């Protein structure tokens, strides 16, 4: 029983922004797994602590694609700290909301961003994001 998506979601689904890969990324976030039906990969390019470029690839439903797309827009040109402040709620709100059963997609998008930053920090500082791990496993359990 799917509720229709908002116009914003459909816009990002129809014309996803920043699709693709970055050849030599400064960080890659890979979250989700095929069992759940959602996989997101996010690639970032960072210069002077600013995310100068970002691309994604997503296997997943309409909401997964739209949240990925929206997340890339929201962090492009932002500092690492700003990007880390991005919450899944903010992604969902920027899309004028998501149906309740699709909220996990926004979590995935937030996690993909965090994953990419974690990877970037590991590469540059040797230490990742303190205490961070993707939440999708957890959510998967709640979904049942």
């Amino acid at each position, binding site marked *: 029983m799917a509720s229709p998506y908002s116009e914003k979601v459909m816009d990002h*689904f*129809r014309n996803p922004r920043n699709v693709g890969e970055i050849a030599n990324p400064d960080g890659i976030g890979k979250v989700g797994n095929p069992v759940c*039906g959602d996989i*997101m990969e996010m690639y970032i390019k960072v210069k002077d602590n600013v995310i100068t470029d970002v691309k994604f*690839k997503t*296997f*997943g*439903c309409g909401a*997964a694609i739209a949240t990925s797309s929206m997340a890339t827009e929201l962090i492009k040109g932002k500092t690492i700290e700003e990007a880390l402040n991005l919450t899944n709620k903010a992604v969902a709100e920027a899309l004028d909301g998501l149906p309740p059963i699709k909220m996990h997609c926004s979590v995935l998008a937030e996690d993909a961003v965090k994953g990419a930053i974690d990877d970037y920090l590991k590469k540059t500082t040797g230490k990742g994001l303190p205490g961070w791990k993707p939440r999708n496993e957890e959510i998967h359990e709640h979904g*049942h």
Partner: protein
Amino acid sequence: MKRIYLDYAATTPTHSDVFAAMEPYFGEKFGNPSSIHSFGRETRSAVEKAREQVAALISAKPEEIVFTSGGTESNNFALNGIAEINKTKGNHLITSRIEHPAVLEPCQHLEKQGFVVTYLPVDKDGLINSDDVKKAITDKTILVSIMMANNEIGVIEPIEEINRVIKDKLEKQGQKIYFHVDAVQAFGAIPIDVNKLGMDLLSCSGHKLYGPKGVGALYIRKGTRIAAFMRGGHQEKNRRASTENVPGLVGFGKACELALRELDSRVEHLTGLRDKLIKGLLDKIPETQLNGHPTRRLPNNVNVSVRYIEGESMLLNLDMEGIAASTGSACTSGTLDPSHVLLAIGLPHEIAHGSVRFTLGRLTTQEDIDHVLDVFPKIVEKLRAMSPLYKKGGK
């Protein structure tokens, strides 16, 4: 934009002849069939005529048809009603892993009440083995419920063989096991003769064969005792209380009459289109597979898995092109697990997530199929281009 509907397994448009038959029973002939006055008598006879029309489609007797509000009620009624009456004789039920939720959920509920249910596996084509039924039977078995045709992958189960296994048990050991068949998808789509097939109960639903939504029936073989599901008035010989949905039943009856008359030509028309679509999809889209047995399937069912991409995103793209289809992906169902049917035939999760069902109908044309075969490969290409699982040039 012209819209193309390819989701006939979900529901069908009410046939114009069906609607015409129903129309007088709303405002003009509106009496309660239980009333003895003229307003009641004219609807009573309309209901009885509908009962004959429904019975005729499956070679049953009219008095073996009990009207319900749809396929779900028929299934709940059959399972609960037989379990309740026979619980002193045994507490074991047999069904399959690919049944519709309207069978699986009542079974799970019966398990909570102390019944034991065996969920039989299927092979990679979706077929149930009648030997498995035989092996699963214990001396506590009171009911076997197997669907005639699967709603997702269209596979047609060996009902006659399964019935023989069950009847053997009666003849050799004197153990009566009731056989219920969920025929919601098969009813009106392929020939059904309850006497040849031998089941005790059979569920069907009006809106799957160009009849109205909200009506269905349970065929109950003469002599079968069953507990009522809805209790109240004396309607349906005390087996199903509630004021009859007269226009709905009249429409359902008409839809059955039309299905009986047109069955052969519908099967022929659909089988041709189905096979064209299957061939076209498999030819045009690499790394695509057909789900369900290639020939022992409903004439109108095409279910394919397209690797590396997810079902709902395919559906939304199809919808943007005006094409209505369905998916076994979890994303439409409110859970995260993909279709239990696709998992049961052995698909890995990620492939199950990437499946699409096209179901064809009376009004589907060659042009519709051509259009899908033109549009869908482009959608697949677009989605694969953004899939992290897909490596260009095949993986």
